[in-house]
């Protein structure tokens, strides 16, 4: 009946996770609670199936890509630190994050890292470039069977052309960042955890 309380003491390595992700202790406790709710068989980690069983995620056209982004480098499961590391990209940017200490690594929720996360959803083979083929594949996910192959190719071509500056037929991370420089990434890619 309900779950046992998620005290900070129950979360392993809570301090290092807090430093790495920037989440407050209260937020981490809530996310741990959520992690345990998703981990139906109490394995201590989440597998692909656990994430696929979230109904609202399964109907998201990019659902599978998002699930992939949690599973690092071919592994089939994600533990709590890994889980929170991905979610940290969506932490809203707060004032204390903006005065960056140049010696410390860039926080996970910086504009650059948020854009990098989105870039990786397109870049299926992780080669640092979005080829026309990869663009087509992601587009196909988002439209399903509603659009013909020809129309889709036209759209993909146009989009790659607009962003591609050095003419190599693919969109590198720099070009991606440049074409989205006006966009309020910090706001659009942020999820606020309620207190």
């Amino acid at each position, binding site marked *: *009946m*309900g*779950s046992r*309380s998620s*005290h900070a003491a129950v979360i392993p390595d809570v301090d290092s996770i807090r430093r790495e992700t920037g989440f407050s202790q209260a937020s981490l406790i*809530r*996310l741990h609670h*959520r992690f345990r*709710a*998703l981990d*139906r068989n109490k394995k201590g980690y989440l597998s692909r199936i656990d*994430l*696929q*069983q*979230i*109904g*609202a*995620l*399964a*109907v*998201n*056209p*990019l*659902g599978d890509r*998002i699930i992939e982004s949690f599973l690092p480098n071919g592994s089939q499961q994600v533990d709590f630190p890994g889980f929170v590391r991905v*979610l940290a990209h*969506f932490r809203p940017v707060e004032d204390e994050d903006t005065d960056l200490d140049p010696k410390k690594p860039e926080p996970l929720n910086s504009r650059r890292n948020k854009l990098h996360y*989105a870039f990786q*959803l*397109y870049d299926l083979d992780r080669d640092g470039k979005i080829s026309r083929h990869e663009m087509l594949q*992601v*587009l196909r996910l*988002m*439209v*399903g*069977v*509603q*659009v013909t192959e020809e*129309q889709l190719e036209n*759209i*993909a071509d*146009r*989009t790659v052309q*607009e*962003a591609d500056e050095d003419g190599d037929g693919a*969109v590198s991370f720099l070009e*991606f960042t440049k*074409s*989205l420089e*006006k*966009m*309020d*990434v910090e706001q*659009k*890619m*942020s*999820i*606020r*955890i*309620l207190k």
Partner: protein
Amino acid sequence: MFLLLPFDSLIVNLLGISLTVLFTLLLVFIIVPAIFGVSFGIRKLYMKTLLKIFAWATLRMERGAKEKNHQLYKPYTNGIIAKDPTSLEEEIKEIRRSGSSKALDNTPELALSDIFYFCRKGMETIMDDEVTKRFSAEELESWNLLSRTNYNFQYISLRLTVLWGLGVLIRYCFLLPLRIALAFTGISLLVVGTTVVGYLPNGRFKEFMSKHVHLMCYRICVRALTAIITYHDRENRPRNGGICVANHTSPIDVIILASDGYYAMVGQVHGGLMGVIQRAMVKACPHVWFERSEVKDRHLVAKRLTEHVQDKSKLPILIFPEGTCINNTSVMMFKKGSFEIGATVYPVAIKYDPQFGDAFWNSSKYGMVTYLLRMMTSWAIVCSVWYLPPMTREGDEDAVQFANRVKSAIARQGGLVDLLWDGGLKREKVKDTFKEEQQKLYSKMIVGNHEDRSRS
């Protein structure tokens, strides 16, 4: 040991006397009122006392928390994250507008930024979704002196611990044996009573006896759980030839509804004790029991139910269209089968007050026996039942729309969240048809623009 000998007969006598007194009290205060359907008001008094104790306990904990300067309440139930209820189209347009330096009518069909919408929505569902939290018990805001609901309540002073200990003693040593005795009485009376009534010749007398045997036994079971039920709008109670639908939280729902009305039950034939009860009940009046193999055949099920409702002399059917137990904070998709039959539907909303004991049956966590034991060691089961006015399917509605209409009415009355998701999501994955809806919406956006462009 030798010292006990002279006291032996004394102890035996005392035991005998106390047991007799206990049983007489039981009979007078519980069983006789159950037979006649009256109440002494003992349970209501009990509930009021408990509320006073809980209020005191909460005050103590608040004081303790204030001393240590911490926050006491952690209301998770409203969701972990802040969400904006905007549609797919609005959000993508807004994202494009903010990102694009070009004028609106020159926007590309696909903006690289479109992905952000799906990305964020997906991440939001990973952090918090409407469905997963419906399959675990509702979390209370303040403690009700049961260790099972102690989530984050740390500021428990010595006095509270003593009170809790007292509570454990009362619940396990006094209430539990009492309740088990009552349950045993109730069930055996049901089996014996219905079998006996089964031997009577068919006629008005048999129906009368059957109705009262059923009601009496359900009322005893209600007292066995110390269920304090408030019925509202009893003039809308289901009549013969109708179907009664209600939201499902636990198997106890059946006992709660059946102790106030005379229904025909629908269900699968079980083995063991349930099977014995089922076979006995059907001797007294026609319930609809399906063999396991028949349950899969939807047409057969529909046919038998239709036959039952068309016979006006038969009792109203009791059905729980959600198909599975939900934690009583929301109502999930109603299966359309019962709404295709074409009979009058009598909706009933059941809302439990979790403060006295959470009635939700988490079937993946607890088996039936564990569940019943937990029920019998809670303080009480307090709930409200609303009988809603009857509804019939309108001419232009199909079964699904009708089901949704009934579901909304029940959710509104019970103060529950109305969800479109299927309760079956507890165990299975969602269908792909829902994904297509999102894909269609998005395609319209990008292809629609493409057509405008080629025209210009």
